């Protein structure tokens, strides 16, 4: 009788930690599918690009925007990976900041340093870097 209580107590003691442990509920974490978005900074950069740059540089950055054909020289093809490889982030930011005239190129590219913040320009560069990957392969 008395010895039978020992395994019983042991059993009860074992129950205690068992009850303390939480069993995670497996919720099917299936949220509505969405395409893999750009990183947040690049998305902000894209908004800036669409607003300020797209009319000349074009949606894909290929230099074929609505206003491009009024410009001589034409705007740079920013989606060209060769061009992107040649330029460091700092050089791209500098050209945006000081404009074409500031870096010895055409004044038709205006300086944006007084309009956009340094942070916006950094975001823009981040987005520009994604342009070659978004580029559609030639048919």
């Amino acid at each position: 009788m008395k010895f039978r209580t020992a395994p019983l107590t042991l059993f009860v003691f074992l129950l205690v930690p068992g009850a303390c442990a939480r069993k995670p509920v497996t919720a099917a974490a299936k949220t509505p599918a969405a395409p893999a978005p750009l990183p947040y900074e690049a998305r902000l950069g894209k908004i800036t690009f669409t607003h300020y740059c797209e009319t000349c540089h074009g949606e894909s950055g290929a230099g074929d925007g609505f206003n491009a054909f009024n410009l001589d020289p034409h705007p740079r093809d920013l989606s060209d990976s060769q061009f992107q490889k040649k330029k460091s982030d700092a050089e791209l930011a500098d050209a945006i900041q000081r404009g074409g005239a500031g870096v010895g190129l055409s004044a038709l590219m205006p300086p944006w340093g007084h309009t956009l913040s340094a942070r916006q320009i950094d975001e823009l560069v981040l987005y520009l870097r994604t342009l070659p990957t978004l580029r559609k392969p030639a048919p």
Partner: protein
Amino acid sequence: MVGADLRATAVPLRRLFAVSSVLFLLVLAISPAKNAFRPYRSLQRQYRKLASSRAHSLKAAQGYEARPVAIQQIWLRDFENRVDRCTTCHLGVADPLMAGAPRPFDLHPGTPHTPGGFDRFGCTSCHGGQGLATTQADAHGSTADAGPPMTPPVFIEAGCGRCHLSESVAGAPVLSRGRTLIARAGCYACHAVRGQDTFRSEAPPLATVPLKTGGEWVKRWLKDPKSIDPNATMPNFHLTDQAIDELSHFLFAVQVPKELAGRIEAAAAEPAGSSANGKKLVSESRCITCHTVEGKGKGTAPELSKIASTASRGWLLAFLREPQAFNPRTPMPRYHFSEAESRDIVAFLEEEFRDFDAPKGILEPLRVNQSLAENGRKLFRLYGCFSCHDPAGSASEKFGPELDGIGDKRAQSLDFGRRTDLARTLPAWLAAKLESPRSFADGLKMPSYGFNADDSRAVTTALLALGAQSVPDRYRYAPPQKPALLPGGPVGGLIQSYRCLSCHQIGDRGADVSTAPLTFEGSKVKRDWLVDYLMLSYTLRPILEERMPVLRMPRDDATQLADALQNFYVDPSLHEDPFAGRPASDADPAEGQRLYVGLGCRGCHILGSSGGYYGPPLTEAGKRLKPGWTYAWLKGPQRWRADVRCPDYGLSDTDALRLTAYLETLRPAASSAKPESAARGVR
């Protein structure tokens, strides 16, 4: 005997005591042991190793190595005494060294509040989840008895919306779009949301339906409004054919107000006009600034290509002459067409803008059956139609459940009904509710809005932003209100009648269709130019599809409006004459012209026969713009409109003055002084 008994029982008792003591100690040790094996401890040790290997100096590496393994937390006293322990595992969120490191050690992406704002905002204020928890499952909220789970990353902008209350939030495009869609779809007409008490749907009054259209058209419309007009804001109620029939009879049983009925009937009796002249008038009037024609145009006003199979000739004529008499809240301005001109326009619409596939009797009025109409009246209430079409009726009670706090609803408290296919999460429930609201159970009344996947994601984001508790005052942000001065009297009447605010902004009032806010219009343009422009407007920005309509404003109206703009809508900080007190060399137009070329202004602006299509042409700049304005603009365009694309060149005072002087000399040649007339208007 007694002693022996005692001894006999004492031995097992002592054994029992010994065993239970050991067990007791073991149980006591469970909690510290559990703590010692918490995943965060090994994560913190991994982090120490990773961070010290990435450190740039020995000292920094030693600093990482010396960090004790302990729970980290951010305590936000001002934010409901919130405590976020997320940084216990997410150790590198504020450490630039950890850019690109694996989760959970990586640097948080840069946002307006990070990396600088962790101390003010913590983590859960944007991401949701359980800040106090120290295991991943509890903190991220996938255990049953934890609080609401974290907001999934695709809806992360919902976090912005908890504090940022305005419709448009900079840096949160998805949230902003969601809020715009909610307002446009008219959700607030049925669902109460804090701060939207004054919302009124833009749905038109239904009083003239019997004289406007026909029974067949109404039935087609009720079946699926978007199939008739893709711009329709009215959702699809998925009505049965019988319900459609009853509702149509109800609509045709409505008494048309005598005065309007008289106008429509008189107009219907007028002789037909010249459709050729109508065609010219329609293209000049730039209807597609607001309307679409076969989907062309950016506006959201009704599609026009089948309008003559929607509305009767009498109604079209009477409406065109005074739209605001038919719908006091219509954004459509009143054009001053002559009687004959309006007949011409309608003749053109009747000839070209009709549905050639429609049955002949589509505009035949319905012969009302009173008992069907009575059933229709009940359906009108049952489906909450009055919420949008009779706003007076919805002011007292909202038809649908309130949406405040929906963003913090627990998935367990949602009725998933028949939708066993859905993940048991709030975002999945909301998305399904938007996509097919009736699929949850029988007898639901919410209509479907035909949102596409992107729209649905945006609306869900905006809904998730409606938290149960309002955030502390010092965290709430609504942009400062810009005062909007709206005169009363005759000028106020003109602004109303021409619906200037349907496109332009004055202060914070008005729509954002035009790129030119009128708030400081009096400081900006010269009076004489303005009078001419109001009487015969032309496009100032060639690339825009939205253009100022030619309202055929009589000279008296134009003068009165121009004078009012010149007197009321000025910025007192601008000097009329920026050259006063400056040396004569500052007003040298030749220097200004050199600057114009050197800065590359021609990249965007047309001057004479060449230049870009981005900004407004400057050929007439001297006739149009006041020098005080031009100077102030050149010194900082964004001061006048934050999102304007004209770059701030950071010009010196002298350079800005010289450029102003040059632009002031730009005037049209005498021959083209009375410009551009209708020829420019025709597209």
